[in-house]
């Protein structure tokens, strides 16, 4: 890829800002590039990064999914409370949660793909519905985590210790899951006909149908995938937190969508890359978690994330507008 083409990519700028921000924090605090800080950041990145992969697929196809936190919460709450202590291995919990998530995703997908309702409305409605089921029917409240998942939560890939302060942090195995999920997402989107079909549908649905892509099937797949992943991620979250908190994922959808857009995923479909979504999520996580190192109280973190979203997406919107408005008449010097 030529340098010129590289500089046209949103990912390129997000990466530069990301690096610049890391250096800034390092210079100001001297605490950025310490093992425990890096591990902390990777840990905070785990859940949003996994959500971003599912969300970006939906966005690329020209839809949007606002219901994944609700699906994640409900699936997680169901398996951790109704199946508490039933298995000694964590795997059945994940499988059942994924199956539940898949079913809920299929409902979204069916309504959106079959009846062509706007995905935003459908998934907002679904979101409200699933949260209602969790709170009303299951009567959700905090609950101790089942032992199989608790043990998984204790498993770690490595421990980062700050030699000066003595603070240390563990990198949970869930980060490994996130990396695998990112790779799966990348593989599907770039190396399979299914993935290219998602881009094709996002670019021009009619043309995609004429080229022989199964538009209905592809949309169903995307929502089912997003739903199943949400179920998986919900269980990951509980086991990372080592407790069942039914409410702490609710509201994450907006941050995840914003992170995707920040990383260059188009809200009208057709454009975006896994790398971009990961970089966007990384930037948001970094800003939210590093302000304290810059001496800014954490209560300001939402303000800064908000600014990053508005400025970041604003810049690309302005660029796009300028690109469209520039005149290109080759005026001769007669």
């Amino acid at each position, binding site marked *: *890829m030529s340098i010129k*083409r590289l500089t046209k990519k949103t990912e390129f700028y997000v990466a530069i800002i990301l690096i610049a921000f890391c250096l800034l924090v390092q210079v100001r605090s001297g605490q950025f590039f310490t093992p425990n800080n890096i591990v902390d950041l990777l840990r905070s990145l785990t859940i949003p990064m996994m959500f971003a992969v599912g969300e970006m697929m939906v966005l690329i196809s020209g839809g949007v999914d606002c219901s994944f936190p609700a699906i994640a919460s409900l699936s997680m709450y169901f398996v951790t409370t109704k199946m508490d202590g039933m298995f000694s291995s964590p795997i059945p919990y994940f499988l059942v949660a994924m199956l539940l998530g898949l079913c809920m995703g299929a409902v979204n997908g069916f309504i959106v793909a079959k009846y062509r309702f706007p995905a935003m409305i459908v998934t907002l409605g679904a979101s409200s519905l699933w949260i209602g089921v969790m709170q009303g029917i299951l009567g959700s409240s905090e609950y101790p985590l089942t032992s199989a998942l608790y043990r998984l939560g204790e498993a770690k890939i490595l421990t980062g210790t700050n030699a000066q302060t003595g603070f240390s942090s563990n990198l949970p195995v869930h980060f490994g899951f996130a990396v695998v999920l990112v790779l799966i997402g990348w593989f599907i989107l*770039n*190396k*399979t*006909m*299914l*993935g*290219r*079909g998602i*881009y*094709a549908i*996002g*670019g*021009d649905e*009619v*043309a*995609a149908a*004429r*080229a*022989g*892509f199964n538009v209905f099937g592809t949309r169903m797949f995307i929502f089912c995938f997003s739903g199943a992943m949400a179920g998986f991620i919900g269980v990951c979250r509980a086991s990372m937190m080592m407790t069942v908190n039914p409410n702490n994922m609710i509201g994450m959808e907006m941050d995840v969508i914003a992170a995707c857009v920040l990383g260059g995923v*188009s809200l009208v*479909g*057709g*454009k975006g890359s896994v790398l971009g979504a990961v970089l966007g999520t990384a930037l948001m996580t970094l800003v939210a978690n590093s302000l304290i190192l810059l001496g800014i109280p954490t209560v300001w973190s939402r303000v800064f994330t908000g600014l990053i979203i508005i400025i970041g997406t604003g810049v690309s919107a302005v660029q796009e507008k300028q690109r469209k408005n*520039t*005149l*290109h*008449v*080759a*005026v*001769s010097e*007669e």
Partner: protein
Amino acid sequence: MSENIIKVTQVKKYFGGVKALDGVDLVIKKGEVHCLAGENGCGKSTIINVISGFYTPDSGTIEIDGKEYSKLTTQQAIEAGVQVIYQDLSVFPNLTVRENLAITMEKSSERKFISRKRYDEIAKQALSTIDFQIDLDEYVENLTVADKQLIAISRALLYDAKLIIMDEPTTAITQKEVKNLFEVIRRLQKKGISVLFVSHKLDEVFEIADHFTIFRSGHNVYSGPTKELTQALFTHYMTGRDIEEEPFEYNEKDGAKTVLEVKNLSLKDGFKDCSFSIREGEILGITGLLGSGRTELAETIFGVHKADSGQIFLNGQEVHFNNVRDAMAAGIGYVPPERNVMGLFMDQSISDNISVTRWDDCRKGIMMDQSEIDTLVDHWVGELSIKIGNASDTMRTLSGGNAQKCVLAKWLALDLKVLILNGPTVGVDIGAKYDIYNLTKKLADRGLAVIIISDDIREVLLNCNRVLIMRRGHLVDEKQTKGLDEETLSRLSVEY
């Protein structure tokens, strides 16, 4: 083996009570360039869909290369060598040239995984069939319409096409690009590939087509070699009525005021040092290739861009427009080239579209005065004989010609001094086209100064008394249209 690539006999297709095709025939020989013409709603698109297997006809037979199909499926049509290039070209703007070329082929061979190497091979093979040079890594959204079209053609050729159907291929490309497209078509013809051209832009089709078939309201009205068809006959068959082509006569009145004068106007990357003026009742043509700066000049006069230097005078007074509202308030109207995108709210009602420029005046206090709006809309619908169902229907329900009349109505509802029409009859039927021409002339007779920007040479000669020629951002020549012939003007507008 048959000498015909396609033979459609007595095909009927009804949609509910609408007889889209009422027993039509269409025969295309091998290696022939065939033109199918007809006004909107005559059944052109229906027959394309029948040949490509999307619609099953209610009765009649379809023969492809001598083989008769009772129920033609899309897959069978493709296998028999029928490829359709739709007007929207069906390319993916968000993908690269390479992927656009390869993806349909890979999809139809039911590949599950992507191989960059195979993509590359397919893309190169596709481009080589028509000797088309282009950067494979470029995103298609950054290409011109003409390039997108060539991509669609080369993609179609990958399927061992025997008949390529092109739906309105010349509407959005410049004359120079049309020449290039015709080169490609002739090359295909030499290889024995037939081309079905669906069009209503005449001059060009006359040049390339061997044979003509004309439909009107689902019936055949003409089928024969191109050389037996004249412009007048063509118009007659298309519309079913004889249309008098009367060139515009400018009645120069004594003391006719200069309405608009432009002096040494320049805009970076738009145009340079443009000066001209127009008087009451004149129709001034501006012609030149796409990208000659003609649209930018018009948009600057309309306040879209701010000129870098130069002056604009309206009725002798120098004016400075900061935005479109200023220009409108001063009495300048502009009908943009892409009316669907820039000139109309397609999903809003016809009534709203026509009255939108007058909403400020149709008020009772802070409320809108619906009855006044209705009166206004009724008046213009009648005045311009716009064919509508109900004024509350959306704009989408109208044909190109009627939609364009609505754009005109919107401007005429204002008290204009200058009306600029940019490509006023692109995508408009012949019948509606002449209605628009007559209307323009009537407006000029009433004293309006009209500027028509067009690359349709006939249109300019027929409607303008004076024409400016624009080339590479400069106004290079000015001619009276009286005594000017098409060839001369066409030569002047092309760069050489």
